[in-house]
């Protein structure tokens, strides 16, 4: 045929041929003309912080996973393997940048200090939301795939109306890119040139579906069709992610409009604790990605630059253990809410209809208790 299929173009998107990387799997540094300038201040202390952050995030994930197996949590969607993507991006934001995640971005809640009580309540079935979004600038978890990308875009429209330079960040997965909402979000973001970052964690699976079911071309190509530039980065390289997010943040803050980041990573665990990934993927694929572990990689790098990794590991361990204790305390002391609270907050003021239903419920509950 006389017209060519789209060819990846460096002008449209960076990292299409190979995801942008600065840390190799062995911990050595790779030069990147694009990313390096944004990493100049990343000294040993900064790297140590990222290492500890990732370690804590992983530990929380492991603890929650274990609590699910023990029946303390009803469900858990693990982030194992995605620590660099989440921590690297989250740490490039300032506190007043508002993040809109899905259900797997636990790192956002952890790093922004939302506390475990509420945060884990969602997975205990006690609540739908774990924290005050306004207090932490983190939206409540979103389960409807892609819906939050529109919220982030609208939020970013609003920051512009305010004349503020806050940025909104939408986190979503590879599967989400197929939803109409995500594409409409790019239409609006591009049309209004709003300060939003579309942060796609391509962890290679939407439940059982490999990313090729969603797209035959790299996901980072998608936004270019909307006039939105994209950065495709090694999602297991915390520095690459960090630098890419800084670039996008700078663009957004200075009126440059939206940026799309595809962080190429891998979901090491099951989709959730009820999933059985052996039904749809091979062990050797998982093993290959284990080699690319984001935390090990940064640790090797710290080693290479002569940092005292034994001490850093030790400190991380202490912090992780403390966090784990805090987490388990929160879960162990959590109590299921009184059923009558199900009538709260449907509206900002009680309505006659719900007051009646609440009264019915209470009378019924009392009558049952009376019988017993």
């Amino acid at each position, binding site marked *: 045929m006389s017209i060519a299929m789209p060819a990846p173009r460096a002008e449209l998107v960076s990292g299409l041929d190979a995801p942008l990387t600065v840390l190799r799997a062995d911990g050595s540094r790779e030069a990147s003309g694009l990313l390096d300038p944004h990493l100049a201040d990343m000294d040993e202390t900064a790297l140590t912080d990222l290492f500890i952050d990732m370690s804590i995030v992983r530990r929380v994930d492991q603890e929650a996973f274990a609590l699910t197996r023990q029946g303390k949590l009803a469900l858990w969607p693990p982030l194992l393997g995605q620590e660099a993507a989440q921590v690297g991006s989250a740490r490039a934001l300032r506190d007043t940048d*508002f993040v809109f995640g899905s259900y797997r971005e636990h790192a956002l809640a952890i790093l922004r200090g939302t506390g475990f009580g509420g945060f884990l309540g969602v997975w205990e079935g006690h609540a739908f939301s774990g924290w005050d979004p306004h207090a932490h600038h983190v939206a409540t978890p979103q389960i409807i795939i892609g*819906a939050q990308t*529109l919220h982030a875009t*609208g*939020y970013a429209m609003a920051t512009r109306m305010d004349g503020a330079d806050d940025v909104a960040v939408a986190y979503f997965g590879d599967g989400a890119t197929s939803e109409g*909402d995500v594409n409409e979000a790019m239409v609006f973001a591009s049309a209004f040139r709003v300060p939003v970052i579309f942060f796609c964690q391509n962890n290679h699976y939407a439940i059982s579906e490999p990313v090729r079911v969603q797209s035959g071309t790299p996901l980072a190509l998608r936004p270019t069709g909307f006039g939105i530039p994209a950065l495709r980065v090694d999602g297991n390289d915390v520095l690459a992610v960090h630098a890419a997010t800084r670039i996008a943040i700078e663009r957004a803050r200075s009126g440059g409009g939206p940026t799309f980041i595809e962080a190429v990573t891998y979901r090491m665990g099951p989709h959730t604790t009820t999933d059985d990934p052996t039904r749809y993927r091979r062990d050797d694929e998982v093993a290959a990605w284990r080699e690319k572990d984001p935390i090990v990689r940064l640790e090797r790098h710290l080693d290479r630059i002569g940092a005292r990794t034994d001490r850093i590991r030790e400190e991380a361990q202490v912090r992780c253990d403390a966090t784990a204790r805090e987490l388990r305390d929160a879960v162990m002391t959590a109590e299921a809410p009184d059923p009558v609270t199900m009538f709260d907050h*449907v*509206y900002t003021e009680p*309505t006659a209809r719900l007051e009646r239903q609440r009264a019915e419920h209470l009378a019924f509950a009392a009558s049952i208790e009376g019988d017993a």
Partner: protein
Amino acid sequence: MTTSELALGAAIGRALGDALESDEKVVLMGEDIGRLGGVFRVTDGLQARFGKNRVIDSPLAESAIVGTAVGMAYRGYRPVVEIQFDGFVYPAFDQIVAQVARLHYRTQGRVRMPITVRVPYGGDIGSVEHHSESPESYFAHTPGLRVVTASSPQEAYSTMRAAIASDDPVMFFEPKSRYWAKGDVDTDLTRDLDTAAVLTTGRDVTVATYGPVVKTALEAAIAASDEGIELEVIDLRAISPLDVDTVAASVERTGRLVVAHEAPAEASVASELIASVVERSFPALRAAPERVTGYDTPYPPSALEGAYLPSLDRILDAVDRTLGRRSSRTGLEYAGGAR
């Protein structure tokens, strides 16, 4: 003195303008609402007056219109978004029922969604498919939304102001066949989003309706009075939650109820009102409540809409049934009717 004569559509425009004027967090967004002033000219002149940042012509995507409004509400705005016609609200359904309606509940009251979704609705305008629908029952079935409409310019003005001022999300169904109906509007009059209004008192039959059918019901009341029958016409105003108290109180007096709306009957607002009144006032009922609604077909081509819509005669026919008088169904095998 703040009273002037306005058409219903213009009264809504006035309410939008006054809301934009009095609260800088109010923004309008929708397709063609800016330069064009909306396909019904309801927002005429507002973009010129308040600028493109507050009266926003959006790309053609309903889910995004509502979904970005959610984001704006997250940042403290009070977006008023327009869905151009009733039949185009469905692409936004997920954002409305799973996001707008639930974020306050989901966040245990921490995030408010003071969003008003304007939907011109209803038939009788001789239009093409998807331009004459009454989808309000879908939203009435959705906890977390307030669903309202208006039957006069005054109601439209005051209810729109209340909707925008409400911290709850409000679906505002604008009766488009009544956009050109004129009436006095006092901009100082306030309204709530909860209560029905008894428009005519009458001892025989309660007729509860809303939006465009209120006019028909009032005409029916006049026609009935010629035969010595008194109708108590109630303008529900709030479609959800319904003001069952007012209707039940009326039925306690009349013992008879007719509910009318343009939407199809099945699992509708009329079904709900009847079920609620039966629950509340069963001993008072002297006849089976009757529905006068659109039939359970898609809204038909406009040449047929006259027969589809609740008409004065269909309402009177239902009134007759509740009174055990001869009606069109006499002879059909119905077991209902008066006892």
